[in-house]
């Protein structure tokens, strides 16, 4: 069994685990797929933050993206559920055992098409989890049809021209009162990493919509979901840094150029201004930003919105710290006396 061991060397984290122990099975995705680069950030960040793999669940739907949980953290329980239905399964699991941490990985088809209803209702419930959308604008696993996040007017050899306006899964999240909404780009490893860390510290549903190019079906330059486009057009809202909580934190910063957001269990997110100042704690500002990005076709990344006031679903349900799944029989089955009492009342 794993206990908290002081790292004996640099290759071990606080749990005494080597980074290798955060690996999964070899990926069966296409070489160069954006999803694989996100996978490696997940591995790195979880190792760095010493997340206990045995207390983590890896959840997904169906799709190339949804295969990813098999490729990280073999020591965590994983569940590759049904297409579009990861949200409901995770809701059940996290209520059954609120001691767990959950990382969900989904695709734009999985979340934006078949799963849109479950996505929105999960957010409304504020189920504690990191919800990663590996967004490539296509259905990779079924070979390249447009998904609901594909851009209006986009052309693909196989799929033709997309004639519908895209769904913005970040705007959807904000509209559904999600309290942690971020957008990033698989090609921006540093930002993905810092956002992942922040998301893992968030108490509630943290949405990361990561543009993750499909090198096989949607990676030509004109596609806004491609590497070349992302590299050329990504506009970072801010430079983000995640500062782990130490016993005592002393961070010097200039409030004129930097915002600090303290997460509920200690760590701090440092947002260094890049362009205009942006207040990620305003829901209205987030909607405005996304609406403007939508109409101007801008690719803005960063922490779009954060609100730490909402209760999570297990909190709303007044659940004990001990997992429901681990309650002993005595706590689950009322006594014979209790039944006798009811029977007596019934007979009265």
């Amino acid at each position, binding site marked *: 069994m794993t206990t908290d061991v002081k790292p004996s060397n640099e290759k071990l984290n606080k749990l005494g685990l080597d980074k290798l122990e955060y690996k999964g*099975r070899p990926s069966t995705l296409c070489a160069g797929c954006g999803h694989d680069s996100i996978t490696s950030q997940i591995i790195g960040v979880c190792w760095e933050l010493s997340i206990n793999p045995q207390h983590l669940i890896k959840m997904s739907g169906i799709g190339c993206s949804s295969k990813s949980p098999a490729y990280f953290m073999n020591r965590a329980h994983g569940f590759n559920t049904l297409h579009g*239905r990861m949200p409901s399964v995770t809701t059940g699991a996290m209520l059954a055992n609120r001691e767990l941490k959950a990382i969900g990985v989904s695709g734009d088809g999985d979340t934006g098409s078949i799963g849109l209803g479950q996505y929105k*209702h999960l957010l409304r419930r504020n189920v504690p989890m990191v919800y990663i959308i590996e967004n490539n604008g296509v259905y990779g696993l079924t070979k390249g049809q447009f998904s609901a996040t594909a851009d209006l007017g986009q052309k693909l050899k196989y799929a033709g021209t997309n004639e519908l306006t895209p769904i913005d899964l970040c705007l959807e999240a904000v509209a559904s009162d999600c309290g942690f909404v971020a957008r990033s780009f698989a090609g921006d490893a540093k930002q993905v990493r810092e956002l992942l860390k922040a998301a893992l510290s968030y108490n509630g549903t943290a949405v990361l919509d990561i543009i993750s190019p499909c090198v096989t079906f949607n990676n030509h330059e004109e596609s806004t979901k491609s590497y070349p486009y992302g590299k050329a057009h990504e506009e970072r809202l801010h430079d983000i840094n995640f500062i782990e909580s130490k016993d005592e934190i002393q961070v010097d910063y200039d409030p004129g150029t930097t915002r600090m957001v303290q997460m509920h269990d200690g760590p701090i997110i440092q947002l260094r201004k890049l362009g205009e100042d942006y207040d990620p704690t305003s829901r209205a500002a987030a909607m405005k930003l996304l609406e403007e990005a939508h109409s101007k076709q801008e690719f803005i990344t960063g922490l779009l919105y954060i609100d730490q006031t909402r209760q999570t679903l297990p909190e709303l349900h007044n659940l004990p710290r*001990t*997992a429901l799944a681990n*309650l002993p029989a005595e706590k689950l089955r*009322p006594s014979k006396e209790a039944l006798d009492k009811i029977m007596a009342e*019934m*007979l009265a």
Partner: protein
Amino acid sequence: MSITIERPAEQSNRPDQTPIVNDFTINVATVNGSGSQTANATIIRALFKMGIPVTGKNIFPSNISGLPTWYTIRVNKNGYTARRDSTEILVAFNNQTADADLESLKAGAVCIHPQDLVLKDKANRPDITFYTLPVKQMVKEANVDVKLRDYIANMVYVGALMELLSLDPGQVKGALQAHFKGKAKPVEINYGVVQKAAEYVRNNLPKQDPFKVEPMNATSGKFMIDGNSAGGMGAVFGGVSFVAWYPITPSTSLVDAINDYLPELRHDEETGKATYAVVQAEDELAAAGMVFGAGWAGARSMTATSGPGISLMTEFTGLAYFAEIPGVIWDIMRMGPSTGLPTRVSQGDVLKTYFLGHGDTKNIILLPGNMKECFEFGWRAFDVAERLQTPVFVLSDLDLGMNLWMTEPFDYPAEPMDRGKVLDAPQLKELQGKWARYEDVDGDGITYRTLPGNDHPAAAYFTRGTGHNTQASYSERPDDWENNLARLSKKHDTARNLVPAPVVDEKPGATVGIISYGSADPAVVEARDYLREDGIETSYLRIKALPLNETVREFIGKYDHVYVVELNYDAQMRSLLQLHTPEYATRLIATNKCDGLPLTAQFIMDKVKQGEGAA
């Protein structure tokens, strides 16, 4: 103010009849949303407390208020509880249906109706005894709030019945006291009206009919309840820790019952916390997902739904079957296909649920037939689901679930909870981490699982609905696939003798077999008595669960004719029996009906007699 009453004109002078005691059916026709439930519950409880066997069935419309509803109260000294086609006493309180309701009465029946309800055919029915009540005036006199007038109007028929049938006034009052949980004021108002009405009848409407009640001692040690309350209570005593559901008639009241019992019975005094979570999902697809998510993580997890919800749970059922995740799904069956008749009963989901899921699936089904079994399967379903690591369906129906039935007290679970084959961290340590999620170690097709959060480094496995080998790794190998399906079939065979066994009542000299299940039971029980009287002795097997086992085969083997009694159009259980015992396929005789109403003994009797050339 005193009541001025015109003496009703239609009182005929009938010859004295032999009284018919404790054996008749009252049919109360009202409009829904008019609060007749209180009145009907009062009558039932009074009868029951007089020691007389009674059942109540509500035939109600799928809307909220203003449409016809019929509440039938069967009084039967022999304890028969099935529906009957005929009514002896009609309480015609609904203008919209009164003419048709009257038409359906047989000669000798009674019709009680308000003065202002005009019956087209009254003059043509000298064979009916009419009692006309000045309801409007009595309500006016009661002088209650507008909102309560309909309720009060219904008390008028309670009073009339009390007088005409000789209901014990003390029990009637007691029933009202129980209903209003002892609050004096409403009891006073209501019972006042009841008394006035009784008095009015006594003074103005001489008894002309033979129906009456007499106290008995046939209900002591029993109480009355509906199957959804019993099932909900059972689930709570089964240690349910997670419920996800979406409202749908007629299953909603099962979750309501759970929600009623949980805070009282399952509040953790140590921590002040809940030992359960009940989530109203956004639909049945999500409810199913949550149930299996929670079941996967180790909760005792369930939902309750009806036909449309079952359809929506098809894909998740297949996943849970194949990934081997426990979860309990109550289907309170209503009439389908499609939205069908949401407030009418059927047993139409049996075949569908057994095979629910695409590809090769076969599910476990429990089939409660009475209140005790609703309670028992409420807890046992979790044991079966966790033992077999698979979805378990409990198929109750609207008749069992929403109507009022007599029952003996429920037994506390005799066995400790069975949490199934779950390996915890110490056990894994002992095994040196050597285990495989889908390996059939014990030869029963059931393999070992671990729960997320298990601290052992080798505890984790990957759950998926795709092909996998014993190590739970993704596999497209033909042999892995075949072996896995073969093991799942073995598990299904294990289930045959793990689920509740059928109840068999074999009679010496019986020439005919009857098989049935669920809410069809009371009609079968009654029909068998009549058939015996008519010279046809029958043996009876009641199925309590699927898959079927050898007991069923042996039973069928003994009779040339086996009547399979059920409430659906396609004789669904008959089909399953034919597939189970192809060698006897032709002796299984479909004895089914599907009109939205509970079965009657008469129907069964007619079918069997016809089949036996005795009709």
